[in-house]
């Protein structure tokens, strides 16, 4: 389309998704493969007797979602174009590939396009006799604590969910059991994002969500769509406090509860900063007697080169701790020994 000068290492904008997937599966050929255009699967498939975990979503968020395909996590990620849900037919094609008596658990992040594709693909799957159950993630709390689930977006809280249900499926649990374990976690995880600065859509060259220098926006969405309120940039400690307080209001962890606390960098914000942010949020939780048993400082789900991060807080039941921490996972961007 546009002929804007983009400060990105790409070739033709329309080939970005196919080229990046090609590079990715070549780099990690012992872990992943392309089953067909835009359908990423494990290099060594899981036994047919076990529940398959399938997800879908746009590209441009690397390593998410395809970076978590592999032993102990996802069986398949169906990839759309940059920031765009894959079409329903493509998803249906993947569901056909994973048709099995044990069933498929489909994880859908709550975004209009993904939900519409999932709805239509599910109708087609039902007609084709494919057994599919769905978890809809809606961890974003930026729309307000009382906002109904359907109106809350799915952010990076899906990543620990993949680990939990992936491990449960790997154990040979039934579709209902895997679903129940995952949905229970899904109900008790919350995410809040903050951004400063903008990013460039690598195909259109459009600048998404321009913020004035010195401004930040708490409640930013995953594609640069705003949501929360803009305010002047605060110190790391102040920002961390604002965010962890909103998250604990939602999750209400009690003294003695076990939680996960992840800081997901969305692009150009450094691990240096994520560590400083984590430090404060961890202090707040610890002072309240809440036990952080699982932590990550990493880029799990990104928004191109945007500056900012997502803070993820999840209450963990005993089985969740076990599945997250003590079950093997071997994917390109998440490994648990």
């Amino acid at each position: 389309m546009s002929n804007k000068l983009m400060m990105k290492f790409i070739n033709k904008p329309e080939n970005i998704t196919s080229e990046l997937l090609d590079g990715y599966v070549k780099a990690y050929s012992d872990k992943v493969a392309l089953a067909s255009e835009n359908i990423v699967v494990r290099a060594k498939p899981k036994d047919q007797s076990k529940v398959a975990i399938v997800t879908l979503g746009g590209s441009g968020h690397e390593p998410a979602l395809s970076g978590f395909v592999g032993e102990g996590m996802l069986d398949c990620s169906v990839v759309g174009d940059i920031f765009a849900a894959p079409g329903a037919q493509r998803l249906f094609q993947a569901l056909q590939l994973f048709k099995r008596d044990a069933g498929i658990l489909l994880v859908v992040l709550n975004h209009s396009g993904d939900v519409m594709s999932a709805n239509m693909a599910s109708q087609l799957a039902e007609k084709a006799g494919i057994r599919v159950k769905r978890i809809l993630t809606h961890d974003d709390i930026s729309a307000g604590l009382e906002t109904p689930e359907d109106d809350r977006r799915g952010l990076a809280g899906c990543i620990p969910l993949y680990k939990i249900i992936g491990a449960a499926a790997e154990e040979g649990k039934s579709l209902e059991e895997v679903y129940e374990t995952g949905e229970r976690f899904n109900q008790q995880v919350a995410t809040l994002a903050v951004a400063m600065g903008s990013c460039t859509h690598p195909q259109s060259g459009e600048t998404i969500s321009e913020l004035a220098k010195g401004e930040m926006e708490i409640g930013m969405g995953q594609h640069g769509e705003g949501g929360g309120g803009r305010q002047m940039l605060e110190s790391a400690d102040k920002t961390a406090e604002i965010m962890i307080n909103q998250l604990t209001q939602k999750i209400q962890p009690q003294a003695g509860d076990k939680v996960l606390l992840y800081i997901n960098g969305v692009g150009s914000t450094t691990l240096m900063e994520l560590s400083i942010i984590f430090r404060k949020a961890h202090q707040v939780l610890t002072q309240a007697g809440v036990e952080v048993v699982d932590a990550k400082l990493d880029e799990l789900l990104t928004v191109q080169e945007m500056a900012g991060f997502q803070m993820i807080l999840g209450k963990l039941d005993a089985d969740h701790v076990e599945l997250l921490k003590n079950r093997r996972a071997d994917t390109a961007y998440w490994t648990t020994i």
Partner: protein
Amino acid sequence: MDKITIQQFILMWKCALERAGERADEFSRLDAVTGDGDHGTAIVQALTSALAAAEKGNEYKAMLNDMGINVMMQTSGSTSTLIGGFLLGMSDYAAGTEMDGNQVRQMFKGGLEGVQKQTKAKKGDKTMMDALIPAVEAMLESGSDDICQLFSVAAIAAQQGANGTTGMKANFGRARNYGERSIGYADAGALSWACIFGAFNETLTGLS
């Protein structure tokens, strides 16, 4: 114009692709305000894959079905399911290689139903529905069986509907999270549908 042949119908989509391509940057820029800045890319992709399937078609029903499936296979984002659903919905009411005014009306009504299977958005929610619903309503309400006339009223209604989205607050799609801040910008999807109906009308005006 009493009847529309399959060749003429394909010309309409060709023109739609051309006009949308010219305005792709505008659509993306608008989508960048409250969304993710890719609607121009998405609509061009969708029309391209629809047309690719159409050009292999020789019978309305199967052709529209192939167009819908191809869009959902080749295209990404909300637009793939919305345009895909529209084409599959049209297919349900289509038949043969020529259609008369009443059939065209029914076919577009079917298209709207196909979209409504995918989304609960209504008029006033600041989505493409604000262009599509008035366009189809205008066709249904028009007393005329002249196909040119049908597309003429549809194009006008779609454009008016799209213009109206500027004052609206978004309730669906990515823009929803912007709430009040979405007011003051037209919806990208509504504008692109108005552009498509405009191109349909332009094609038929040129033919007749």
